[in-house]
């Protein structure tokens, strides 16, 4: 994002003239991408919400009005008011403050899953597509198996083995997430494997690894990044679903899915206990979907 915003104020002639260097060509493409992206109002809204989430997580102690884990049974199950913006839960904890602190958990899950799934998927997919043959067959059979499942069910199977908990949930989501990325990276690799510039690199004596890391993976990056972003929305929903079933983050962690789960028992009398954490999940997941959609229009226009 930072590179895009620095490139954005470029003047018109710069964008349309012929690039004089590789650097200039890259800057031009970045600016055009940024302009396209900024033209998509929904996508910009998505980015703003994500930025807000990051700010919320970073400055949680200053934004929250209460200690998220402080129990006060005399103030239990109070409706929303000026004191407690979103009301209080069954232990008298402030729901607004818990949602603010919960943003940290959401970001933790999304971040951790993304930085494990992305590189693993990229490398496995690129290697398998580049070399082909037996390795490729084996890898594709394994990804076939993973993709044959709805992700939540396979995640549940892993959680059943790993046991309930936040770290286990992250691991289980990552374990089920990489095959989709690997498939995508492999498909991209297959289309560029026989390109002339790969052949040229080979003739110059580059090793297979140099080609994969230097030429293949950078070409796979755009579509993988788009997919990862859209995937983040799914990760949030899966993590929340695990939390709801009591298999994700454990109490008293203010995880949004777990909060809706505890609120469920009091739902009919105390609507706010379920409504606000669920809204938080929806807004953030929507933001990642909007952001991913906008990113796809910029980075990967052919797939839309």
């Amino acid at each position, binding site marked *: 994002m930072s590179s895009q915003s620095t490139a954005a104020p470029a003047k018109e002639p710069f964008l349309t003239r012929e690039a004089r260097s590789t650097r200039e060509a890259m800057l031009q493409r970045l600016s055009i991408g940024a302009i396209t992206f900024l033209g998509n109002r929904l996508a910009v809204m998505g980015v703003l919400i994500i930025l807000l989430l990051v700010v919320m997580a970073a400055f949680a102690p200053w934004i929250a009005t209460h200690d998220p884990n402080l129990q006060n049974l005399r103030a239990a199950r109070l409706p929303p008011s000026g004191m407690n913006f979103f009301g209080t839960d069954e232990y008298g904890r402030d729901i607004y403050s818990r949602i603010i602190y919960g943003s940290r958990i959401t970001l933790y899950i999304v971040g951790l899953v993304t930085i494990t799934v992305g590189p693993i998927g990229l490398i496995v997919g690129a290697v398998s597509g580049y070399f082909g043959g037996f390795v490729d067959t084996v890898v594709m*059979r*394994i990804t*076939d*198996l993973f993709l*044959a*499942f*709805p*992700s*939540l*069910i*396979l995640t*549940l*199977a*892993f*959680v*059943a*083995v790993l*046991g309930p908990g936040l770290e286990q949930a992250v691991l289980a989501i990552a374990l089920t997430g990489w095959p989709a990325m690997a498939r995508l990276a492999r498909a991209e690799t297959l289309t560029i494997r026989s390109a002339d510039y790969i052949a040229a690199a080979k003739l110059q004596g580059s090793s297979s690894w140099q080609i994969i890391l230097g030429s293949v993976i950078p070409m796979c990056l755009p579509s993988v990044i788009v997919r990862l972003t859209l995937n983040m*929305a799914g990760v949030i*929903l899966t993590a*929340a*679903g695990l939390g*709801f*079933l*009591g*298999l994700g983050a454990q109490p008293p962690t203010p995880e949004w*899915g777990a909060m*809706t789960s505890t609120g*469920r028992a009091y*739902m*009919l009398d105390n*609507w706010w206990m*379920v*409504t606000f*954490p*669920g809204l938080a*999940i*929806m807004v953030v*997941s*929507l933001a990642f*979907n*909007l952001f991913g*959609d906008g990113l796809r229009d910029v980075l990967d226009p052919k797939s*839309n």
Partner: protein
Amino acid sequence: MSPLHRRRLMGFLQSAGSIAVTLLLLVTLTFFLGQVMPVDVVSRLVGADADFQTYEATRLRLGLDEPIYVQFWLYLGRIVTGDFGTALLTGHRVIDDIMRVFPATVELGTFALLIGAGLGIPLGVLAAVRRDKLTDHIVRVVTLLGHSVPIFWLGMMGLLVFYSWLRLVGGSGRVAVFYEGMVPSVTGMLLIDSLLAGDWDVFWSAVRHIILPASILGYASMASLCRMTRSFMIDQLSQEYVISARVKGLSTWQVVWGHAFPNIRVQLLTIVALAYGSMLEGALLIETIFAWPGFGQYLTSNLLLGDMNAIMVCVLLVGVIFITLNTIADLLYSVFDPRTSK
């Protein structure tokens, strides 16, 4: 045998082979997931205060003293002969349990699919025809929300609004408690059973109970079906035959439904088949919310109990269902679209 037939046969054998390999991998996965579990199966079976001899005898009987590849072989043998073990939760054979709960899920899923496909496909066509107009944007927002909303939360909100506040629909369960067990179970699907028994009171009670969970489940699948339909339709509408049909003077309605839509039917059939399978995922959470006694609830209660054998049988079953649906989708493609068979 003509070359064409031989090629067809080879193609068939090849896909049968790859399905077999995927199934074998699936069984291997569930076996190893079952192996690494931190639970002592034997003491679960014989009880904590069984004496050493009983413990050892059971351990030997289960083949747990054998090396792992022998155990895998035994496991494979049990699966092939249809022996899936018993569930700790009910004490019944897992397979019997699943047969008992599955019709409820099929009923819910089918109802939801009717809603999802019935709304999603026309909306997707509409969005494609009115591309980049207001209608398209509204449809886009509705589908994006469907992708983003946590389904369990939507279920709870639905109960709160339509059951608790507006009193429009039935609460949790498949039918009002009063009518429970009133009609004999023939298919296991209450809507059909009550019709067979001619009991309209039970039927309407069942409809009032299924409508909310099915709508919410259907909304999720509507979102993805609508999106796919829109992009398929946009592809078709930019083809030359559409332009020539327009030049000929056909109305938009005729062009869209008479010319373009028939060309995306096969693709739609495929994604509808897959959407049907994805219902299982949503059903897992929705059944928990609505106390719907189906497969999803069975799986989650076993998860909470930590009964690995039952969980793995459920996972195996889901995998088999998905592989079957995928195969059916492929078959539909090659039957209805001759271009795809070489």
